[in-house]
């Protein structure tokens, strides 16, 4: 008997074992150990399923935050909860255990949507001037954000998020700069201009005492467009 046959037989035996053996135990090990949700806070360990997120948070400036500080912090959402006793349970409405979250929920100008202590205001953006509407407050008269270089990035992220399955609001833009996320960008840039200039008479100048002319610029257009790929890793 060659090696292949031996391996095939081994796998078949193991497969049979998997099918046969669990008949004496529950399908999922531990499935009858129910968490007690009646204590304070979130008693379901998010990390069980989101170990990667937990590992990332350990390296993050947010490492002292609980999962619920962000993902159960939206004041406009009723999350499923139990207070004191299972008889005092509140079913979730808009969300059960958690909701995905936009950075600006906690970092908008007054963080009115956040139930926890808001994070510092990420001031200096203005998306309304680019015709984009967000439920979060990006600017006001004092924090106008009118010259922010990344306004288009933030505004586009919001616009794409409205009605899509990308991250909420401008979160793509936030995490692109403020986290370790890999970002790939295609910049379409112009590399020059076309100038049209016409020698033009102006008339007598009492300042120079001469009859004047000048080379008038009559048109400028951009040229040399190319796409440059940037990868942040």
């Amino acid at each position, binding site marked *: 008997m*060659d090696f*292949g046959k031996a*391996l*095939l037989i081994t796998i078949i035996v193991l497969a049979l074992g998997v099918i046969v053996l669990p008949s004496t135990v529950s399908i999922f090990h531990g499935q009858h150990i129910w968490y007690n949700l009646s204590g304070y806070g979130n008693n379901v360990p998010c990390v069980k399923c*989101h170990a*990667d*997120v937990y590992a*990332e*948070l350990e*390296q*993050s*400036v*947010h490492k002292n935050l609980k999962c619920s500080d962000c993902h159960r912090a939206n004041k406009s959402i009723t999350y499923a909860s139990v207070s004191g006793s299972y008889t005092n349970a509140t079913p979730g409405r808009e969300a059960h255990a958690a909701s995905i979250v936009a950075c600006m929920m906690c970092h908008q*100008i007054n963080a009115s949507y956040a139930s926890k202590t808001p994070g*510092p*205001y*990420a001031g*200096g953006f203005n998306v309304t001037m680019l015709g984009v509407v967000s439920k979060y407050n990006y600017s006001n008269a004092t*924090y*106008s*954000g*009118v*010259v*922010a*270089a*990344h306004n288009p990035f933030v505004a586009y992220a919001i616009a794409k998020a409205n009605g899509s399955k990308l*991250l909420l609001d401008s979160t793509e833009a936030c*995490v*692109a*700069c*403020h*986290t370790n*996320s*890999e*970002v790939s960008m295609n*910049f379409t840039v*112009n*590399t*020059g201009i*076309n*100038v*049209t*200039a*016409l*020698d033009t*008479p*102006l*008339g*007598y*100048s009492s*300042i120079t*005492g*001469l009859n*004047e002319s*000048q080379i008038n*610029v009559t048109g*400028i257009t951009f*040229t040399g467009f190319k796409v440059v790929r*940037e*990868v942040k890793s």
Partner: protein
Amino acid sequence: MRTVGLVLILIAITAGIFLTTMRSVSLLKGSHVVYNISSNSVDVNCSSCHKHVAEEMAITRALHGPHWDLSCVTCHRYKGTGIRFATANSSGVYPGKQAHAAYVPSCLDCHGGKGAWVYNVSGVLVHAPPARAFNVTYESDYRNWTVVSSIPYYAAHKQFVAYCENVLHDENLACLACHTNYSINITYKYPNYIYVYISNWYITTGTYVSSSLKVYNVSYVKKNIFSGKHIFLPLKKINCSKCHENIYLGLINGKHAPIYVSPKWNLSENLWGFVRYHGLAYYGITTLNKSWINDTYCDKCHYCVYVNLTDPSSGVTYTYKNPFTAAAKGLVHCAEKVSCYTCHHRNSTYWWLDPYYAFLNATWSSPLDAPYHEALINQTALNYPRYVHGDICMSCHEASYHFGKCGSECHAGNRIVYQYTEP
């Protein structure tokens, strides 16, 4: 059978990987590693997303061009205009007001007014010099030029800056076109020729023919990593001839200001038998040399006084005599608009640059005697556009297009003369 075995092994390994790895991943890997930005330095690295811009700045450093010792923050978080950027440091968190991380600066934010003091990468204060003549408020019509606080009429390139500012709302483009590796294509359109009617040594009628345009294309396309806007060129690498190639070719072909002055002051000498070349010497030039045509050469006419004041090493030896000229007052950026009249008339701005005071001391015999000659020049300057001035002069002094010797064409009675514009 061996193949089947290998496939099964691979399936088993894959299944093992699925069982042993994490059960879920976040939508964006790394999105929960939020940077700590509370240190006193810049914690978000601009070049992580703008690597190509950083590479262009590295070229600037290698060239030792302007801004070589500046960081992204110096320009893009410049606070001199009152913009407050988002800041987090050991003293607290301060939300941005007008901008969050950065803004797109106007060159004149630092180079306007009297310039600005900024910190370089070493934390040393360095001075951003004012962009003379352009560091002021622009007035659209030169005839309204009544105060020094507007870009003076004399400043060449004013229209370029003005168009970028007023039409494109980005005067940076004009700065970038000259001071960086940003590419530029220019289509110049000149009247093809001027028409004058000469009667008894005076132009009795004259016009420029704008319906017939001479088109000249200059293409100055540069290869860059990104847009080229962050490769700042040392001033000595800014070459006038690149954008004014037609002038350059006119010079080396003897068609731009190609005056030859006889050392003997003798009209009978073959005025058109020599190669004529303006400015390098006043006589004896018999061979054109392309190497002479460089920015220093251009500066001698178009930026002469100011170069002399600011850069004695330039080799320009003109004597600074008139402190009230536009260039001397810093009202010229890199070039001043001139015509023959500018230097060769006794009432002109730079009359002392003409060692022979051509129109003042002309002692030539009739018909080119001084009074007539000067009257013609005055009449031209007062009544015809600046670009015609040179053509009127060239009609006599340039061999290339001359119709013939004095008296045989233009002055042989009343004549209609078509003079092709230079260069």
